[in-house]
């Protein structure tokens, strides 16, 4: 009630100030008249009575002002006046204003951009109801690493556990949709019936999966994503119940997910179909149901904590029951890993993002320091103005308020421009983002990001404004008004020097980080991949449809495809492989060597099912024995190559050639032949250049137990590899036009992509370090330049007394370099301490790599020398006659 009165009365005054003023004047006037009348009645003469009344009331204007000042609405006109004055001030100094606003915009904009990535990934909960109750469950692999669960493990857990209200398993699915103009390979997921239930989502159109859908040989049904529905079926609601062709089979569409559904578990998935695994045949262990290839997600019951669920799982894991027999590779002896989905999705990128946040905070700090410096320099120029105001009766608070209004105006303008910077920053972030970055679609400028930028700008305005404002408002009018006071360097020089030192220190920390990352990347790309990546074009070819049900048709297709590709002008050689190095894929099978005692494979290796000539084409060197050739065909005895690392580990000091092994589906099967090792080839980097896991077995496509439906074609060309892609694609389509060809990339692209996360971090740090360097240089320049201006007379006197230009140059330079050196010393300590945080991102160098530190120090000193040179040479040119005459 009274608040409403406060506001409404205040507004009434604001809207009609004249009326309010007239009211007040009339009231005061009436008071005066009454008072006079009272004095008259006491017997004073009219003149005396008026005088006495006036004396009592005091100054009429003062009274009016006193009453007016008590309402909140009176702050507004002064605020507007301050703003008007501030605008005039900024307008009068376009150079200062532009530099300040740009600096702030860079600092705030960069921070905002990083925040826009951190907010959805690390701060917000995932876009599901009660997202904190969604857990990821995995088995233990070798060395405590995480391993996907098997179907029967999932079944046992969902039967025996009571902690979860829903559980689901999933695996990737890449069906090819035909029937429209071009074959379209889609990304999708095979999921168990409760998948969407676990996430707390349901289709917007149609129905969700039902447990009766998820049975072996169950109905062929799919749920579409909103994007696929809109893209391929133009959002037609009658799609539900219609049939679409996937991999030559008819699938009935039963539902469409809502537009808002974000699938963080497989962001690119556009359609879902039931898993339909066999629940009954738990005894036979050579089935896909016992393969570790399913990701498992589950929703906790309300009130059950993650810890309780872990406890229950540990109990289940250590107490097998006879209804659920377990093979040795899914024994659950080490228990199970239970993590929140949020942790699972963000764990890999958290360090890099936090490092980026730390870096951008440093940049913002440097920007603030720089602006504080600029403001201090300006208030030094404005001492006269402040002194005049103080002399005319301006109170300290009033002056503080006015100065803070000025800096807040600057920071608000900077903040507005920062939104533009942030918009570009966000686009760059999304464009550069490594494939592992989750929720990329949610990185954008929204309300929260906007609020963040606004608050940051306001805080920055207060922080950078406070020190200079306090300095300025302390001005002693008498000394400020004296002309000569400009000759002595004021005490604020100390503050400014301290600020420059801190700026240099902060810049050094950032530069060291960027330097370490740069050297890591250099080291990384110096690692030989084990093959020759130049002039290599790669693409994935898929054989889909029922015409390929017979393996011999697949062999024929591969043969014909190779034949036509080799006829394309510019192609030197071509081969198929099931696993492409550095593609990001892995394909690991157990290996059993002849003479191993245990029946279960003790070893595992990458499997490359290749066409003969693959190793020669890739340039993988032969160490012993012979390569695979045209004679290693179906019918001949099975010959394989193994990698050097596997040979060294399994046959130390022995001859590996002639030894025999079996792999994957052939393990422990007497009806399958042993493979004879005929050669040893060099190690190849499969996962990335940084990972040296390279145990591998090469076998010909025809000798492997089946023909993979997805094959990578590798083509060695003359000249530019990317340019030949269309011709090669058309050649394959001339054999069969329905086969999708995807992931076309040169090997150089794959090399670069394999280091995408490091490169992402590097680009961010390089950008920030560069910004820091420029800002620090500007800071040094600003301080020295200001100091030279203030000392012009002193320098004039010195040169009049015989100082040479060279000695003055050295004097100023020394001043600047000293500041830098102090900053470098402090920054070194900070950089060493801070380097711990990025140790995980380094490769092949120590976090204390001396070369990096020396290089960075050298660069910083060099840049600061350049920044010092300009004011120093100006000082050296000071003409004593002019300076002294000017007094």
């Amino acid at each position, binding site marked *: 009630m009274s608040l409403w009165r406060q506001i409404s009365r205040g507004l009434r005054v604001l809207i009609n100030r004249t009326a309010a003023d007239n009211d007040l004047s009339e*009231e005061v006037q009436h*008071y005066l008249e009454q*008072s006079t009348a*009272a004095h008259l009645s006491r017997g004073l003469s009219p003149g005396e009575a008026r005088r006495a009344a006036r004396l009592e009331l*005091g100054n009429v204007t003062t009274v009016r002002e006193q009453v007016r000042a008590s309402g909140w609405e009176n702050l507004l006109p002064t605020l507007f006046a301050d703003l008007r004055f501030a605008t005039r001030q900024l307008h009068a100094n376009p150079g200062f204003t532009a530099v300040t606003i740009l600096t702030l915009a860079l600092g705030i904009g960069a921070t905002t951009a990083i925040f826009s990535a951190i907010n959805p990934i690390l701060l917000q909960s995932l876009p599901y109801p009660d997202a904190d109750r969604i857990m990821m469950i995995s088995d233990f692999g070798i060395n405590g690493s995480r391993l996907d669960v098997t179907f029967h493990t999932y079944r046992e857990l969902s039967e025996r556990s009571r902690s979860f209200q829903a559980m689901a398993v999933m695996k990737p699915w890449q069906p090819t949709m035909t029937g429209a103009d071009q074959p379209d390979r889609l990304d999708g997921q095979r999921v168990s019936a409760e998948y969407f239930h676990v996430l707390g989502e349901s289709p917007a159109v149609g129905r969700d999966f039902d447990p009766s859908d998820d049975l072996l040989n169950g109905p062929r049904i799919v749920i579409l994503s909103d994007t696929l529905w809109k893209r391929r079926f133009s959002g037609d609601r009658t799609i539900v119940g219609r049939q679409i062709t996937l991999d030559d089979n008819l699938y009935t569409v039963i539902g469409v997910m809502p537009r808002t559904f974000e699938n963080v578990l497989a962001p690119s998935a556009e359609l879902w179909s039931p898993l339909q695994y066999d629940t009954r045949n738990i005894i036979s262990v050579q089935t896909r149901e016992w393969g570790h290839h399913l990701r498992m997600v589950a929703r906790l019951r309300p009130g059950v904590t993650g810890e309780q669920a872990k406890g229950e799982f540990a109990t289940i894991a250590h107490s097998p029951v006879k209804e659920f027999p377990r093979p040795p590779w899914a024994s659950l002896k080490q228990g199970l890993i239970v993590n929140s989905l949020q942790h699972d999705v963000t764990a890999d990128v958290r360090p890099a993002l936090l490092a980026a946040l730390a870096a951008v905070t440093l940049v913002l700090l440097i920007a603030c320091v720089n602006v504080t410096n600029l403001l201090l320099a300006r208030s030094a120029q404005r001492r006269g103005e402040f002194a005049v105001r103080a002399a005319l009766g301006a109170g300290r608070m009033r002056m503080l308020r006015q100065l803070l209004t000025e800096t807040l105006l600057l920071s608000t303008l900077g903040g507005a421009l920062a939104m533009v910077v942030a918009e570009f920053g966000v686009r760059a972030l999304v464009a550069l983002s490594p494939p592992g970055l989750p929720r990329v679609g949610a990185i954008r400028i929204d309300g929260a990001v906007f609020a963040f930028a606004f608050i940051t700008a306001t805080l920055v305005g207060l922080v950078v404004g406070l020190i200079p404002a306090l300095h300025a408002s302390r001005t002693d009018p008498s000394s400020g008004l004296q002309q000569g006071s400009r000759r002595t360097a004021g005490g604020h020089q100390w503050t400014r020097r301290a600020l420059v030192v801190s700026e240099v220190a902060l810049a050094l920390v950032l530069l060291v980080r960027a330097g370490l990352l740069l050297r890591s990347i250099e080291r990384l790309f110096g690692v030989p991949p084990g093959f020759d990546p130049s002039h290599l074009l790669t693409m994935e070819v898929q054989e889909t449809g029922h015409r390929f049900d017979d393996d011999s048709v697949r062999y024929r297709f591969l043969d014909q495809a190779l034949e036509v590709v080799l006829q394309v002008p510019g192609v030197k050689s071509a081969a198929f492989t099931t696993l492409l190095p550095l593609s990001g894929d892995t394909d690991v099978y157990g290996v059993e060597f002849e003479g191993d005692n245990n029946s279960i494979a003790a070893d595992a290796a990458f499997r490359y099912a290749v066409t003969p000539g693959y190793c020669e084409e890739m340039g993988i060197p032969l160490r012993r024995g012979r390569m695979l050739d045209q004679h290693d065909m179906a019918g001949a005895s099975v010959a394989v190559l193994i990698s050097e690392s596997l040979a060294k580990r399994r046959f130390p000091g022995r001859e590996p050639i002639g030894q025999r092994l079996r792999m994957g589906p052939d393990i422990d099967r007497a009806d399958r032949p042993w493979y004879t090792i005929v050669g040893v080839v060099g190690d190849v980097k499969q996962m990335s250049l940084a990972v040296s896991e390279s145990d591998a077995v090469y076998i010909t496509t025809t000798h492997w137990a089946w023909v993979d439906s997805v094959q990578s074609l590798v083509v060695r060309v003359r000249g530019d590899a990317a340019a030949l892609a269309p011709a090669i694609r058309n050649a394959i389509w001339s054999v069969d036009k329905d086969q999708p060809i995807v992931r076309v990339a040169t090997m150089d692209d794959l090399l670069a992509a394999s280091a995408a996360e490091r490169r992402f971090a590097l680009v961010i740090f390089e950008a920030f370090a560069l910004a820091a360097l420029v800002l620090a240089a500007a800071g040094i320049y600003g301080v020295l330049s200001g100091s030279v201006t203030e000392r012009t007379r002193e320098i004039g006197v010195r040169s009049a007394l015989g100082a040479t230009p060279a000695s003055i140059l050295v004097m100023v330079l020394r001043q600047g370099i000293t500041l830098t050196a102090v900053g470098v010393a402090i920054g070194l300590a900070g950089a060493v301490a801070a380097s711990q945080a990025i140790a995980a991102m380094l490769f092949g160098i120590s976090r204390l790599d001396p070369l990096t530190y020396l290089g960075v120090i050298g660069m910083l000193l060099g840049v600061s020398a350049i920044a010092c040179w300009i004011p120093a040479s100006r000082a050296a040119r000071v003409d004593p006659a002019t300076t002294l005459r000017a007094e």
Partner: protein
Amino acid sequence: MPDPTTDVIQGTLDMLILKTLSLEPMHGFGIARRIEQISRGVFKVNPGSLLTAFQRLERAGWLDSEWRQTNNSRRAKFYSLTRSGHKQLELETYDWARRISAVARLLRTEG
């Protein structure tokens, strides 16, 4: 020499205004004179503070004001107490009495 007049004790002006207006609506000078008269000239009201206090009390919702004709046919701003003003007066009176008796007790024990 008569007893010197003193300024109104800090913080009691609001209460004195409310008390004065609880009898009848009045204009500014009337209120000032009434306070001086009833206090037998002990308190002297500063007009600036008085007018500021009116604005404050009005915005707090304790006073209403309206322009009226006085007996000598001049326009004057008359203030009157609102219902919440009455309540506020009770509150402040009670509070004041409590303080006064506390101070009195203290002075007695000291004496």
